[in-house]
């Protein structure tokens, strides 16, 4: 577990279990958490983050349901082979929503269309560089 660390903050609008889900999901998608990587046990993550173990149980359960992690009886949780749990229409809907949020923010900050495109390109290149070593690049 070299690069990946979950961090949580209290007092935020996002519940702690959701913060864990979001961070693991992103790390698995970008390759920071490689396929097959063992996740910390529920107890050890709860004790490291100083949160109730049920919070971690809830986060892991959601990640298993969404296909990000898989649970192996008696062995713990592992980063799963990516499989799509959403329909094509749902994936498109989510992408549009994410793009909307991003574009609104970027436009509000007075960036030109060209600058926004460049920033997206740069980010994609950066992520490619991370996923390649794991052979996960489509």
């Amino acid at each position, binding site marked *: 577990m070299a690069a990946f660390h979950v961090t949580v903050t*209290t*007092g*935020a*609008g*996002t*519940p*702690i279990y959701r913060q864990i889900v979001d961070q693991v999901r992103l790390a698995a998608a970008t390759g920071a958490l490689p396929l097959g990587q063992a996740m910390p046990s529920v*107890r050890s993550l*709860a*004790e490291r983050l*100083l*949160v*109730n*173990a*049920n919070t971690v149980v*809830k986060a892991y359960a959601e990640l298993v349901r969404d296909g990000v992690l898989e649970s192996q009886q008696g062995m713990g949780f592992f980063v799963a082979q990516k499989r799509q749990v959403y329909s094509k229409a749902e994936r498109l809907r989510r992408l549009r929503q994410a793009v909307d949020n991003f574009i609104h923010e970027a436009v509000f900050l007075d960036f030109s269309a060209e600058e926004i495109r460049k920033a997206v390109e740069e980010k994609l290149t950066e992520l490619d560089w991370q996923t390649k070593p794991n052979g996960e690049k489509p």
Partner: protein
Amino acid sequence: MIATEQCGLSNHVNPTDQRESVIQVRGLTRYFGRKCAVDSVTFGVPRGSVFAFIGRNGAGKTTTIRMILGLLEPTRGSSTILGYDSTTLPPKARGRIGYMAEGHPVYGWMRVGQYAGFQRGFYHHWNQEVFASVIDYFAIDPRTRAGHLSHGQRAGLHLAMTLAIEPELLMLDDPATGLDPAARRSLLEAMIYFTRSRERTIFFSTHLLDDVERVADHVAVLDYSVLRVCCGADTFRDRVRRLIVRFRSEPPHKLPAIPGLLQVARSENELSIIVANLNEQTERDLEDIGAESVEEQPISLEDALIAHVGRQGDKSFLLK
């Protein structure tokens, strides 16, 4: 005033939760002279839960805890703890409860090491290893006189005495108040360590909501002697929502009775409201008063809890 019934957050525990209650309180009431300190409080604490009892200073938390432990007679109502009536709690059952009193009082002349011998005389079970490791964890020299300990170390001493009897129920009365960040962290670690066994239960009173968010799975809010909320922490978060309601011009000054309305903050042409149990009727009620748009905004646990304390119209502890 908003009664708990209206908020719908008064169910004692999650209805799917069939676990046995280690504490059951029924209509518990206490007067001091003519002043009502605790007013008909009813709730249950499921075995294995981490139950946060939240409220401002003077809300009646300590009085409730003392009644549950049988240290104070209720004026009306009753409570059970570990299945025994609080007023006739046998010493053997008392030995299964670790109680940390508010403010961590100590006998100043006694040395920390002597406390172990003193305390173990009252309990049939004592784990000296646990006592020594907690003392060590809080960097306390056992030869120190208790009167010379810092506030954080005094809490550490109490924690050591409480954990060494290896109780199945921890009753912590405001354990974290006045502790520095390092001691607070140690206390949280101890609480999480304690719940490694799923059969153990923690009941703690507090007004530090960061700690509640981290460790509690059940929350109860006591305010002005009355229980306002009692439910699972997740249920609570799901049910309490913040809405930004926009109007074409100035929002109406008088609002109709919206069920579950907890807090209203107004600005030029919008209202920011916090409601419990949002439903379609809420949206219709808001449209009826001329709302142009209603948008939901994320709300922190702290804001959701604070919306439940204070007489109606209070914004927060300080900004009235």
